[in-house]
C-alpha cells in the first residue's frame, strides 16, 4: 500500500468511516503508523544513521583511539613546534593535528562526543522526567498544587537562561562543587544547570495537555469505574502524552548539547583534561588564525551533531503529526 493509501485509510478510520474488507487497517498501532511515515523521510533517516554512528563512536572511543590514534589524555610535547610551543596541524600520526599541550585532537573530538551525548541523553531524560511528573500533577490536581508548580515555572522562565546557567555553573565549578558536594564540578554541574532550566518547558506543555485530557470521556469513565488517581495518571493520561513527550525530547536534545557547549566555552562547564567540544572551541579561539584544525574539527562535530538531532526531531514531529505536510 502506498503512503497516500495509508494516510487515506487513517483519515477514514479517524472519521469513523472504516472501509469494510481492508485487513491492513486492523492491525496497525500508532507506532507502526509513525514508523511507516518516518521511514519515508530520507533526511531524518540519514540523521538517525549519523546519530547511531555517533553513539557507537562515543561508546567505543577508547578502543578506536587506541587502534587508530592516541589515548585521550596522553600528551606528546614532541609534536608541538619546538621553537614556539604552538600546535601542529594534521599529519599521518595525528589525523586532526595536536592541541596546545600536544594532545591528539582526533582523540579529544571522539571523547567530546561522549560528553555531548551524555549531556544530550541524561540531561534531557532528567528534565523530561521532572517536567512530565510535575506537569501532570499540576494539570491533574489543579488548585494549590497547580498554583505552586506553575508559579515556580513562571519564575524560572523569567530568568535569562544563559545567565542562570552561568550562575549555577560558576557556583558549582569551584572546589568540591555545591549543595554540600552533591553536585561536583564538570559534567554533573552542567547537567544540573540544564535540568533546572529545561524541565519548565516540558512541564508547562504537559500541564496544558493534562488539563484538557482530564476532562475527556475516557478519564471520566475510568473514574466512574473506581480507578484511583495513580491509575488514571499512569494508565490513562501518560500513554496519551507519549507524542508530545517524544517530540519535545528530540527537539530539546540539540538545545542541551549547545547549552553544554556554551557553558564549557564560557569556562563553567567541562574543564580539561576532560574534553568537550565547547571547551575545545574556547581553547582554540585565541589561536584560530594559526591553528585552524584545533577549532574546525570540534566545531564541525558540534555542528553535524546538532544538525542531525534537529533533523531527526523534525522528522519525528512530522511523522507523529498526521496533519503536517509530508
Amino acid at each position, binding site marked *: 500500500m502506498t503512503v497516500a493509501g495509508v494516510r487515506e485509510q487513517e483519515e477514514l478510520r479517524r472519521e469513523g468511516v472504516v472501509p469494510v474488507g481492508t485487513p491492513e487497517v486492523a492491525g496497525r498501532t500508532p507506532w507502526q503508523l509513525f514508523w511507516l511515515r518516518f521511514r519515508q523521510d530520507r533526511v531524518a533517516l540519514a540523521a538517525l544513521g549519523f546519530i547511531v554512528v555517533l553513539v557507537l563512536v562515543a561508546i567505543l572511543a577508547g578502543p578506536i583511539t587506541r587502534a587508530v590514534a592516541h589515548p585521550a*589524555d*596522553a*600528551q606528546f*610535547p614532541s609534536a*608541538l*613546534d*619546538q*621553537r*614556539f*610551543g*604552538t600546535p601542529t596541524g594534521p599529519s599521518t600520526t595525528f589525523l586532526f593535528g595536536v592541541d*596546545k*599541550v*600536544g594532545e591528539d585532537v582526533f582523540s579529544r573530538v571522539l571523547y567530546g562526543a561522549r560528553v555531548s551525548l551524555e549531556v544530550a541523553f541524561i540531561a534531557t531524560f532528567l528534565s523530561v522526567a521532572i517536567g512530565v511528573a510535575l506537569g501532570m500533577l499540576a494539570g491533574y490536581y489543579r488548585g494549590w498544587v497547580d498554583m505552586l508548580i506553575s508559579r515556580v515555572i513562571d519564575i524560572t522562565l523569567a530568568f535569562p537562561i544563559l545567565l542562570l546557567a552561568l550562575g549555577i555553573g560558576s557556583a558549582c565549578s*569551584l*572546589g568540591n562543587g555545591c549543595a554540600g558536594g552533591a553536585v561536583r564540578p564538570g559534567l554533573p554541574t552542567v547537567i544540573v544547570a540544564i535540568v533546572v532550566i529545561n524541565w519548565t518547558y516540558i512541564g508547562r506543555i504537559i500541564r496544558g495537555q493534562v488539563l484538557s485530557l482530564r476532562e475527556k470521556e475516557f478519564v471520566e469513565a475510568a473514574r466512574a469505574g473506581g480507578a484511583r488517581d495513580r491509575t488514571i495518571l499512569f494508565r490513562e493520561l501518560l500513554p496519551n502524552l507519549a507524542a508530545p513527550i517524544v517530540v519535545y525530547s528530540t527537539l530539546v536534545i540539540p538545545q542541551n548539547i549547545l547549552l553544554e557547549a556554551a557553558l564549557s566555552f564560557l*569556562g563553567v562547564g567541562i*574543564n*580539561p*583534561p576532560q574534553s568537550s567540544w565547547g571547551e575545545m572551541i574556547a*581553547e582554540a579561539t*585565541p*589561536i584560530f*588564525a*594559526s*591553528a585552524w584544525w584545533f577549532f574546525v574539527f570540534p566545531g564541525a562535530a558540534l555542528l553535524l551533531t546538532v544538525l542531525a538531532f534537529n533533523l531527526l526531531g523534525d522528522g519525528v514531529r512530522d511523522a507523529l503529526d498526521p496533519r503536517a505536510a509530508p
Partner: protein
Amino acid sequence: MRISGNPRLRLPALGACFAALALLAAGCGSSSSTAGSKAKKGGTITVLSAGDVDHIDPGQMYYSFSYEIGYATQRPLLAYKPTGVGTVPDLAASAPTVSRNGKVVTVKLRRGVRFSPPVNREVTSADVKYAIERGFASSVANGYVGVYFGDLVGAPKRATSSVPEIAGIETPDSHTIVFRLERPSGVFQSALGMLATAPVPAEYAKPFDAKTTSDYGAHQVATGPYMIDNNRAGKLTGYTPGRRVVLVRNPNWKPSTSWRPAFADRVVFKEGFQDPTVTARTIESGAADANGDTPPPPAELRSITSNASEEDRLTFTPVGGPRYVALNTSKPPFDNRFVRLAVAYALDRNAMRLTRGGPVDGRIATHFIDPSFTDKGFVQAGGFRFNPFNGGGGGFSGNLDKARQMLRKAGFANGRFSGPTLTQVSDNTPPGSDTARVVASNLARIGMKVRTISVTHATMFTRFCSVPKQEPNICPNVGWIADFHEPQTQLDATFNGKNILPVNNSNWPQLDDRRIDALMDRAETIVDPQRRYAAWGRIDQLVTKTAAAIPWLWETYPTLFSSHVSKAPELWNSGAPDVTFMQVLQ
C-alpha cells in the same frame, strides 16, 4: 614580587644574551640604537597594557608596570638606565658611601632638581626623609619599606597611625641624607633605587597623608621629566583607573640635572587591552608603540619572527626570576622529601615550557637564582651546571626511573604513588591552565591522581596558594621576581620559614627548614658582596635540593615596539619600555 599570570615583571636583569636565545640575539643589547646623533624631540608614545597600576602613589607602587610610570615621573635616589641592570645615581649626585662597619650610608643630593607645579621649589634631603617615613604610616602602607628600611634606627616595627619620625634618617644639610642602620645590611644600598625614596614635599603632602587612606597619589607632584597630567591645583586629570594614564612634560625638569633624554612630549598608557593578540597586532599596525604589561603570545611571536623587518622590532630580556611548582610541605604527602623528589623527577619541564612558548620564552630553570644575576649569585649557585633533577640523557623531560626509585624510598613498594587524590589550584586561563594540565598528566605517570581547581590568577593567590590554611597540595603556577639585583630578594620572601604569613603568604611551599633559615638570617647581614653572593648561592642549592618547589623556567620577556619609535626596553624591569629613552621617529 609575585610573578604575574602573564610574564610581566620588574627586576634588575643583566644585559648578557644567552646562547639559547641566539634566534633572538638581534633583540639583545640593541636598545636605544637609534638614539644619539639623529635625536629628535617631540611626538606622542602610546603604550598598551591589560591591567592598571597597582597604586598611582609612587610611595605605594610595587607592581612592575607601575614602575614604568613611576620612573618617568619620579626621581628616587638611584635608578636604572635601560641598558643596564645596576642602579646609577638619579636624585643622588653620586654613588652612596658606606661606612666600614656597613651601618652608615650617606647620600649627597643633586642640586637644581625641582618639584612640578604647584610646589615648584627645589628638592631637599628632608623631602626624601619624609618620603621614606610616610611609607610606614598606615594611610600609605607601603608594602616593602618594612623589609628594606626596617633596619633603620628607630624605624617602626608595624604601620603607625601617623607619619613617624625616624631617628635613623638624618639630614645634616639640605642636600645630604644619612641613613643609620641597626645591623649591617647587604641590600640596603640597592633598595635606595625603590620608588619609596622619591622625594615628597611634606608641607604639600601632609594634609593628604593625614586621611585614613592617603590620596596624595591623586595630587602627586613630579620630579622626573614627565608628570601625570594635572590641573593648576595639582589634582591629576591624566589618570582614569583602568582606562589610561597620560604623561606630559614636567615644566620644572631641567635636562642638565638628568641623564634621561625624554624625547617625546607626551606618553599615553592605554589600559584594558586584555587580549594579547589584539595588543600585538595593534602595535604591528602602528596604532600603538609598545606592549606595557602583556607580551605577544607565541603564535604572534612566530609570525613576527618569520619576518626580518618585524623581528627587529622585538626585544627579549630576562625576567630575572623563576617560575616554579610549589609543593605544600605542611601536610602529607609532600611533607615527605622523597615524594617531593619523585615529583621533581617526574615533571617534564620541557613540556611545561612549551605551554608558554618554548625556547623563546627562556631557559629551563634548574635552580632559583636567575642567570641574569651572573656573578651575583647565579654562578655561585652552580650556574647552568647545577641541575639536581636531570632528566634521562641530560634532557628536561623527566626521569621516571628516578621518580619510582624515590617513591620506593618514600615507602611505596612498587614505585607507584598510591595515596589519595591530590589537589592543585591553577589559573583558569592559558598559559597557566595549560601548564597545570601538563603537571597533572606528568604526575599521572607515577600514579598521582591530581584534581585541578581552576580560578582566576588573583583568586589562586588570595583564596588558595597564599593562604596556608587553604593551600592545596600543589600550586603549579607560582613564581617570584627579585625586587632588585640581589639574590636575597629572590630567596628570602619565598623560602625563609619566618616569612610564612597567615595571609598574603609568599613562601608557597611553606618551607621551614631550620638550617636554611639560619643561613639566610646570617647572609642578610653580610656586607661584602663576594661573600654575600657565595652565601646566597649556597642557600639556593640547599633550597633546590629540598624539592619543596621545582623551578622550571627562567623566563625572558618579549617586548614589541612599533616602527614609529626607537626601541628602549628596560633591562632591570624585564623589557618594560623605558618611555624616557624612546623617541618618535616620524
